[in-house]
């Protein structure tokens, strides 16, 4: 989810800037139109971001991102099934879906805490400690979900 979102978000903004630039070509050049003068296509922008992501992201953060996108797929599948096939038994849906969502949230926290660029915010907290918290929280979540699904 995280890489996709980062990849997607600039794309529409690039598209809008392009659209606005084409509409306001004869008008006074704005800041956005000035920026778009690099003549990059949206594909190129996206590819650039992706390349940048591959270059600058540590391997462990990439691992986290893979896991999170896996969770998004599992969560979407469960939700779609619930919409299509009905929510009986509801506690099973709640526990299955919330286990995925909860795991996603915990993993996102781990990603924030272990990110080298956030060192200023988590100076006290070592990545090992963050990982231990993550494992502890996940175990509680799994136990809760298994108990709740009965």
């Amino acid at each position, binding site marked *: 989810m995280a890489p996709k979102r980062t990849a997607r978000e600039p794309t529409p903004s690039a598209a809008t800037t392009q659209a606005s630039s084409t509409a306001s070509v004869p008008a006074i050049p704005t800041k956005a139109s000035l920026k778009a003068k690099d003549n990059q296509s949206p594909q190129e922008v996206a590819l650039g971001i992706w390349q940048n992501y591959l270059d600058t992201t540590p*391997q462990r953060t990439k691992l986290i991102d893979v896991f999170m996108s*896996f969770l998004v797929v599992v969560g979407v599948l469960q939700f779609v099934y619930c919409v299509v096939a009905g929510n009986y038994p509801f506690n099973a849906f709640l526990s299955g879906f919330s286990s995925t969502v909860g795991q996603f949230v915990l993993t996102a926290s781990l990603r924030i805490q272990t990110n080298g660029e956030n060192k200023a915010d988590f100076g006290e907290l070592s990545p090992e400690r963050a990982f231990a918290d993550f494992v502890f929280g996940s175990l509680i979540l*799994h136990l809760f979900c298994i108990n709740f699904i009965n």
Partner: protein
Amino acid sequence: MRWLLSFLLLGLLSVVQAVSSSGNKLLVVLEDLAEKSKYSKYIADLEGRGFSINYESPKSDKVALFELGERAYDHVLLLPTKAKGLGPALTPKLLLDFINAGGNILLTLSSSNPTPTSLVSLLLELDIHLPTDRNALVVDHFNYDTLSAAEKHDVVLVPRPDAIRPDVKNFFRGDGKGGDVIAFPRGVPQELGNTSPLLTPILRAPRTAYSYNPKDEGEAAEDPFGAGPQLSLITTMQARNSARFTVIGSAELLEDAWFDAKVKRSVGLGGVGTDAKSVKTANQAFAAEVTGWTFNEIGVLKVGKIEHYLNEAGVKSNITNPKIYRVKNDVTYEIEISEYSWDKWVPFTPQAGDVVQLEFSMLSPFHRLPLTPTTTTKNSTIYTTSFRLPDQHGIFNFKVNHKRPFLSNLEEKNTVTVRHFAHDEWPRSWVISGAWPWIAGIGATITGWVAFVALWLWSKPVPLKLTTSGKKIQ
């Protein structure tokens, strides 16, 4: 030795004599003991049915319905008196107290003796209205006795009454063959209020009868008190505690003279009875039925044992009448009902079209189910029903509320707690196939997590290479 003998005698006595289901102490209030002879056959009937009778005059000092705060008698028969009042021992208040204490009263009226005002007010209290003319009586020009009242038409001949509703038991039909005639001589008609559900008439006046005051000079009755079946000749009131109160409009109906009398009906509407023969009245049998009903000899219901138990999947639980059930339990309820019939308890069967019902209620009934008779013993019927408790927890009652005209009231309530499912009583998730996708969801999440943790621990943290180009892009 002597006490043994007396006990034996007492036992024999109680076996031999038929007795009302609620005791045999009967007080007969009549003005003059000499009047007793007029009712000798009726009284002999009562004694033959096992009543021990005390005779008192209303003026007597000894007459008292209560003794030390308890009922002194089980039943009271009030025969007409000439006195204007009944004295301090038989005030309407005391008579009502007597009913409230479970005593039965049979009240007879007579048009020749104006009804005492205290009795009129007692009847008003029960929503039974008497004609305002003190001498009013029932007259019928189409159903009178030609032998005794050819001139005055004040001996009304009535057939035995039909059941008031098809689903109500008729205790007053005699042998049921029909053709019986009841002579109702010079009776006082009653009108019943609409509001009281406790009042039921036994005998209504024929369609052509009306209330007439013989003191009126006019040829025709103007503005009569009532006419036709609006007039009740014999009225009953069964109180909520099943105490019974009956008004017989004509005390003469009970007299020997009318027990034996031969009557011949007049020509009725549409030429009915043109070839009528003189027949003997059915007064004696009818009086016995009315009196028997009033004095709890017939139409009395009794509940024996009540059982309810868990009956899951057709397996009867050993624990009867548990205090607690769970929602959606399968439960069986059994109730044993007997009916008293003159001298013994017999199995109770509701009239065709009627049914005994069980309510399973919390404030309002969640279930109202018919009870079906399953077993019949010598003197009772066992009614059963099985059902699934509602999906609602709380305090519930098994309630049988059987109130029917002419039958004593049954109101049985057994309170149970209905609890919700315990945590371990729900079906496991894998039993429900609908839950499988979400079990798979949890499984995938946990497996993915385990794989992630393993990879994380296995992988070595790679130091971040911060290139200048990366900073440029950001």
